[in-house]
């Protein structure tokens, strides 16, 4: 799937991805998507298209453990987040919710807002026109959770196997 790049800087925190004022309301995915990045880039939620990719600097997702900061991006159709590094709780949350998070500083340096990109998850490649950036493959345990569609599905399978 091809998508467009949305480019942001370092330390994009969970409060600007999904504000605290909405955190303790139970919301449907599409409603979460309508608040995605609203305190960082008010135009994002209105204009993001399925398959688009977020490209950001270091420590993406720092701050709160709120999971909607990953859920709202997935609900908005974001194909993956590519960053120089991720905050640890965000990394786990994203995987657990089935949102691919790729660490690739070279791609972050090179890609600009609006660039078109395609991701080859199995091959570990980010492709933008003539440019190809390799990212380290995710550990098997993580791929298993992503392939199951998230931790809940993965745990269901595990519990099923125990029965």
């Amino acid at each position, binding site marked *: 799937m091809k998508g467009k790049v949305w480019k942001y800087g370092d*330390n994009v*925190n*969970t*409060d*600007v991805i999904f*504000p*605290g*004022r909405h*955190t*303790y*309301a*139970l919301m449907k995915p599409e409603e979460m998507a309508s608040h995605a990045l*609203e*305190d*960082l880039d008010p135009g994002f939620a209105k204009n993001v298209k399925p398959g688009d990719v977020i490209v950001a600097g*270091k*420590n993406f997702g*720092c*701050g*709160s*453990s*709120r*999971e909607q900061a*990953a859920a709202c991006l997935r609900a908005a159709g974001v194909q993956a987040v590519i960053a120089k*590094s991720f*905050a*640890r*709780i965000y990394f*786990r*949350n994203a995987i*657990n*919710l089935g949102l691919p998070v790729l660490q690739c500083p070279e791609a972050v340096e090179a890609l600009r807002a609006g660039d078109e990109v395609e991701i080859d998850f199995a091959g570990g490649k980010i492709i933008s026109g003539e440019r190809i950036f390799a990212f380290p493959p995710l*550990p098997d*345990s993580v791929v298993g959770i992503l392939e199951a569609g*998230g*931790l*809940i599905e993965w*745990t*269901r399978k*595990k*519990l099923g196997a125990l029965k």
Partner: protein
Amino acid sequence: MARTFSEKVLSRKAGRPVRAGEVVTVVPDYYLSHDNSSAIIGEFKKLGLDRVAAPWKIVIVLDHIVPASEEKYALNHKIVREFVSEQAIPNFFDIEFGVCHQVFSEASFALPGKVIMGSDSHTTTYGAFGAFSAGIGRTEMASLWATDEIWLRVPETLRIELVGGLGAGVFAKDVILKIIGDNGADRANYRTVEFGGPAASNFSLASRMVMANMAAEMGAKNASFEPDEKTLAWLRTRARDAYEIVASDPDAAYEAVLSYDLSKIEPQIACPHTVDNVKPVSAVDGLRFNQALIGTCTNGRLEDLEIAAGILKGKRVNSRVRTLVLPASREVYLEALKEGLIQTFVEAGCVVLNPGCGPCLGAHEGILAGGEVVVGTSNRNFRGRMGSRDSEIYLASPATVAASALEGVITDPRKFLR
């Protein structure tokens, strides 16, 4: 072989000797969640199980929006109460108790050597008592309730060596802000932050909680202080379970060791909009603001309220500043009442809020309008966190906030605390 605190705790839990970088599957000791328990319950129900695996390990504290300010929050709380009753979860703290990290500590789930997972980023706080405690998300908590196990990567350890004595008007909050400012918001990502050195034991448990709490703002997975006489004195009357003291071996391998001479630190303040944008208070002295906040899970304990009340006693806060006081817990509130601190605050023109998270996460009790500025003792100053995306948050010690509330502009507290 010498090992760090985190390597030792996780080795014991894994049943084999492990090193930083290895992945282990462990059965933790306690699971903390708060208002987000309603969302966790939603995820848990998707698993198709009737019962949680270990109800006695689950600790739920309602604190984020208490009492409920809107119907949707009331519904959340109702879902939690019904689930607690249905699953016979013994450790449920309803709205009167206070902020989860304080309540969890007072109720002494925070015990040396325990592995604690919490669906809150400031779960690092229990490192103050020598526990291994880390934050996770809601879905992961639902899975823990179901399976009673989790995979963890054994973290590398960043050791912070504390030497020297604090000057007058300088507190644990200034020390941790200085460390975060010097090293950045991601310096400790995926790591343990271990506080040690000859000055570490000079800090009260309340002050250790400030530093362990804010280690999260450097990205830390967990924080740790080695238990000492002060820890044992606290546990003597409170410990709810047997515990084992775990400490790093003297020749343990650290990722890095940073040294801080406390006598060289002056009052610090984190400026908008990141916690690592730290300056000496003197650099922003005289800046006007609209709201002061004294309290929260970071700085709402008795020693914090004593310091603030000491500065405010017999005076009145500046009429342009709305000053909010938020005791961290019911226990702290009662002690503050006995000491007359609450009377001091009210006489000084402060608004005393019920124990809980209050305005810190921008959901109720003191939201900021566009263009407004707050100076508070909380732990995060991200854009829009306490209201309008066009408001600004400064973070400092209770002394700095109290001194600033009196003057109506950001003020170095040392003029009141020589």
